[in-house]
Every structure is written in C-alpha cells, then in structure tokens.
C-alpha cells in the first residue's frame, strides 16, 4: 500500500478561493438549512415559555401584561434580536430562492445557467434583506 497524501477536510476547504458557483451554492444551502433548523427549535422553546398566557383573564390579555406579550415585547426591545431577525430573513430568503433553483436543477431546466441563477439568488437575497432593514430596526434605537 502506498501512503495516502491525505489533504483531509481542512485541505478541501482551504481551497475555497477556487470554488465555483455551484459549490458555493451547495455550502450556503447547507449552512442556511442548519441555521433554519436551529431557529425552529429556539422559536419553539421561546414561545413555549408563553404558554401560561393561554389561561390568563381577557382583561390581562388586553392590558398586555400577560407572560406571552411580555416575553415578546422584552425580546423586541433588544437591538441584538432585531439584527438577528434581519439575519434570519436573509437566511430564509436565500434558502427559498436557492431551493427553487435546485428544484429547477432537479427538473433539468436551465442547467447551463445554474451559476447565473445562483448569483441571481444572492443578489435578490441582498436586495430583499436591505429593503427589510427599516422595518425590522424601526424603533430599536
């Protein structure tokens, strides 16, 4: 047996400068997918803390002093949460757009322009994210 010149994972990914569009799309898709899964569980965990609010009096709910409303309001006061929300939107939008791209790839449509459709998803994600910033950050300062 010859000895293997094993570049390993590190070697693979230190070539990132040479990666082509399709490879980047794959990496981003994986990454955003995991972020969304992480978000999903955080989302469930955080909202579960507000469950007692379901047993609260109507008056308390209307006054907005129940545990659910309080949790949301206090979270939304944090600048960090607002910024994370923008990030979440970016991640979700990219995952959707690239998911559509992958759907087309699976259907065998426009495989020659797969790199351009990746760039398009990136640009569109950027545009939507930037456009959303005012809405998300309004009143946070």
């Amino acid at each position, binding site marked *: 047996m010859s000895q293997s010149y094993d570049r390993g994972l590190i070697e693979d990914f230190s070539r990132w400068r040479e990666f082509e569009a*399709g490879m980047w799309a794959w990496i981003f898709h994986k990454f955003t997918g995991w972020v969304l899964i992480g978000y999903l569980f955080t989302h469930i965990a955080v909202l579960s803390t507000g469950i007692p609010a379901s047993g609260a009096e109507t008056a308390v709910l209307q006054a907005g002093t129940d545990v659910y409303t309080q949790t949301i309001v206090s979270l939304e006061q944090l600048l960090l949460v607002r910024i994370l929300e923008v990030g979440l939107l970016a991640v979700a939008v990219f995952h959707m757009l690239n998911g559509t791209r992958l759907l087309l790839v699976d259907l065998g449509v426009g495989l020659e322009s797969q790199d351009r459709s990746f760039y398009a998803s990136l640009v569109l994600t950027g545009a939507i994210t930037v456009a959303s910033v005012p809405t998300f950050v309004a009143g946070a300062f």
Partner: protein
Amino acid sequence: MSTQIPKETEETEGSKADAEAGVPSKGDVRRAEKRRRAAEKREERRAEEAERAAAAEHTIELRVFRYDPDVEEKQEPRFDTYHVPFEKGMTVLDTLIYARDTYDSSLTFRHSCRQAVCGSDAMFVNGGQKLACKTQIVDLEEPIRIEPLPHADVRKDLVVDMEHFYDQMEAVEPYFQTDELPEGELEEQRQSRENREKVKMSTRCIWCGACMSSCNVAAGDNEYLGPAAINKAYRFAMDEREGEDVKQKRLEIIEQEHGVWRCQTQFSCTEVCPKDIPLTEHIQELKREAVKSNLKFW
C-alpha cells in the same frame, strides 16, 4: 558508443576479481572517473539550462508536489520549484516534461498522448482538477502549483492510484449489452441519428478521473459510483438499441444506495471535466428516469 560495450563487460569481470582481493582495480578507478565526469557534465548542462532559462524572456515558475514512499528522505511530502522557459502554446504537461528532462529525471507523472485523448494526466493545478496536456500556461497564474489529484492515494509525486476509480467504472458494466439482436447474422445494429445525438457528449469520457476527484460527495463516500461511472451508465441506458430489459437492469444499478441519489448537484464535476461532458445534467436525467420507472402504475 557501441565499441565500448564489450570492453565494459570485461571490466566488470575484472573488477569482481579485484574487489575480492580488496584493492581498487584500474577499472574501478576508471569507472569512478567516468562517473565523476558524467556528473560534472550533468552539472554543466544543468547550469547552462538554468542560465538559458534565466536569459529567456519569460520563465515559468512551477511548484511541484514531490513524494516518494520508497526513498526515506522523500517520504515527507514537499514542493520543488522549477523555472521553465516559456514557449508559445506551452501546456502544463510541456513544462513538466521540460522540468523532468532538464532538472530532475526522478520527477514522476503519467502522460502518453499529449492531446487529451488517453486521460492519463489529470492533475491538481492551481487548486483545480485539470488535464495537464490541455491546460495552457497563459491561462494560469504564476507560480503554477501542481499537485496530484485530491482524494486519491499518491503513489509517487504526481501519480495517484486510479484503481478505485476504475472499479467504480467497471461497476456500471460499461459495455454494450442487448437482448434485441437484428435478424440476419450480418445485419448491422443501427442507431437513429437523434439517439446518437442524445448520447454523443456522454461517449467522450476519457477516464481521467478529474470529476471524481473534484466531487465532495465522492470524497466522503467511497462507495459512491461517482460522476464518470454514472455518465457511463447514462451512455448505455439512453442507447435505444439496448432494449427495455437491459435498461431496467442499468437503472437498478444506478439507483442503489450509493448511486445517483448521492449527487447533491454541486456541479464541480461538470466544471472540471476536460471533455466538457454535462455530467450533472446526465446524473439528473438518470434520477428522473429512475423515479419514472419506479412510479409506473399501469
């Protein structure tokens, strides 16, 4: 030269006797002298070449991966630098041949046809899988870094073990099979023009292994058939002359656990294939074929 041959044989015999006696023979002395002169000449030639290379208008700087498991001092992988005078139309393979012939005859790499036909010189050039004989120097940034194909065992320098790649190719039965023979013994089995067009690109594969080496999925899953093998399967599965039964058999091979479904459409193989085969497209089409044949409700 030829006249010297018998003389050398004599000397060899003589030296044996002398060596037994423990005294350096005349022959030994002469041979040592000859060796020394040859080494001197080689040095001279090397210096000359280096000078010429330096004087040339444009020299290429190569960084070549070196490794030799059989020599103790070379077991540690290293990079050697060579300067090669540029010539118009020079390919990566040309520079390697120059470096080997001029500087270091132990530099090892595979090559044969030098025209992108035999598929023996796929390498990792400046971070990408390239066919050395098809890659123009002018298209590359200097210094040019040349390494053996990633995700394969290195045998020596730029030579990698291709056995695994060939095994995967064999696994898809890359030869024509049919149960629908034409009548008449001397009858030709013709293919329609449209069908030929359909498989045309897939027939171009030269078994260079660049695609397999570029694929992250193949790197992580040794059993994955890989782009080239699936493309081979495509070439025959799409050939109408093979008939339905054989096609079913082929689809069964490619849709097993480590077949087409491993592909995550990174497009790396399609980018690196020196024969411009739309590999991802073919893999995707086979995926659809596999689904279609499994979803037949009638």
